[in-house]
């Protein structure tokens, strides 16, 4: 996003010319998501799972659970950990080793989309206050990368959480039960290319964009999380427009889940 090589200037010119005619290189409208395909529950070793394609971007999400101690300041709540792994299988520039700043930002934005929206009823994951709670890991792996992992990751995480069954029997804690969920926030991302805002950018679009805005909205159209990225700016009018595009796209995706 930030590296402006001569090549990407050419690419940018090409993409901008198309945008000025209201077109994108893959034929989409500016406010249109790529095709979404989600396979839920395909991983039997996980408590819940989803494989998701957003255009050519593909991720796998698995939910694992265990029993552990609660944090001292939330003695009656389960513990949630969200992690995005950008494995080199997915893209030639992803590297093994400690997570890059990009992977960390992704993890934290997805985590906030789940945590701050209070999607999961964490109090329903308390076994014994102060002593035992369910620990929930949301592990997201990028398998094939063509831009906008923010949305692919967070939507696939929501899908995986939806089919998660708490493995209570395996841990000797009574009968298995469905993970207790409340609202279901959907994150959608817009980037700015020149003066245009486009939804759900491909990698090519992402590379020539100057700024990014991810917006998580809930069933009521309320805002649940937001993250601006990139070394460009938005005006407040642009922010409002991006919020509107994300809200609309979120509605459409929520219906598919």
């Amino acid at each position, binding site marked *: 996003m930030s590296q402006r090589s001569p090549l990407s200037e050419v690419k940018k010119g090409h993409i901008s010319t198309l945008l000025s005619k209201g077109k994108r290189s893959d034929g989409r409208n500016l406010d249109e998501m790529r095709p979404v395909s989600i396979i839920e529950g395909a991983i039997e070793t996980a408590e819940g799972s989803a494989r998701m394609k957003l255009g050519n971007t593909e991720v796998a999400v698995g939910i694992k659970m265990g029993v552990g101690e609660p944090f001292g300041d939330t003695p009656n709540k389960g513990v949630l950990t969200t992690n995005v792994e950008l494995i080199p299988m997915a893209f030639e520039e992803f590297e093994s080793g400690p997570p890059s700043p990009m992977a960390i930002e992704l993890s934290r934005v997805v985590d906030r989309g789940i945590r701050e929206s209070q999607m999961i009823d964490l109090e329903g994951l308390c076994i014994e206050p102060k002593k035992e709670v369910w620990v929930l890991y949301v592990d997201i792996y990028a398998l094939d990368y063509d831009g906008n992992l923010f949305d692919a990751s967070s939507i696939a995480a929501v899908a995986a959480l939806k089919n998660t069954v708490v493995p209570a029997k395996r841990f000797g804690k009574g009968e298995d039960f469905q993970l207790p969920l409340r609202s279901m926030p959907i994150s959608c991302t817009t980037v700015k290319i020149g003066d245009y805002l486009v939804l759900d950018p491909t990698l090519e679009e992402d590379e020539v964009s100057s700024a990014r805005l991810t917006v998580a909205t809930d069933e009521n159209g*309320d805002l649940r*999380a937001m993250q601006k990225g*990139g070394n460009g700016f938005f005006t407040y009018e642009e922010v409002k427009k991006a919020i509107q595009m994300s809200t609309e796209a979120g509605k459409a995706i929520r219906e598919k889940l």
Partner: protein
Amino acid sequence: MSYGDLMSMDLPEGLKLIDEEGKRLDGRRADELRPIKIEAGVLRRADGSAYVEMGKNKILAAVYGPRECHPRHLQDPTRAIVQCHYNMLSFSVDDRKRPGPDRRSVEISKIVGEALEYSIFLEQFPRTSIDVYIAVLQANAGTRCAGLTAASVAVADAGIPMRDLIPACAAGKVADTVVLDLNKEEDNFGDADVPLAYIPRTGEILLLQMDGHLTQAEFDRAIELAKGGCTTIYGLQQDALRRRYAFAGGDAQESEQEAGGNEA
């Protein structure tokens, strides 16, 4: 009541974040910033530096560069890059923080660095790195905004050509009220937080995050308040640099400037 008590508990009974007269725990109105002090040129070794107090936040920023870019593979032949390192000192919070970067500080470093990149004429210094270090000596909610405010003054103090200074502050929602510049208790027990970096002259938004739950109307109000806060802070940044240049050559002055109300 000690800090630790407030931190690890639900809101203690009887405590109201906003009282009947609309006053907050620390006596502020909804649209009021905490007292702010900004000082430029506080370190000798760094090329530029600044110190910011924003309420109980105490933050140092230092800038080195433009200088040779390490690691090499990050070099950009067309422009400088900004490498920003936000660092909470171990004793800046109630429970000792292990030294070294955690995931939170990596994320903050990234978004603060991106905002700074926009403000600098990077094309003038190809292949170099501008390294920005933010050290939080004492934290009390809002450190990313105070850190960016300080870092921007430090970049200016280093004499690096800039588009403009970047002021930053947060607004949020506390006890059903949209308020400016949350302190730690408000952040812990509030409903939403919206950090913003905004250049008053151009209306450009360089940093924007949101946590919690806001209607779109509440969000509008939060942005409105935060814009006002940024306008005030922008003035204090300029004052600090003016004092710095006025006394250049001598030691940096210990002149304090407080921001009371704020007509946002």
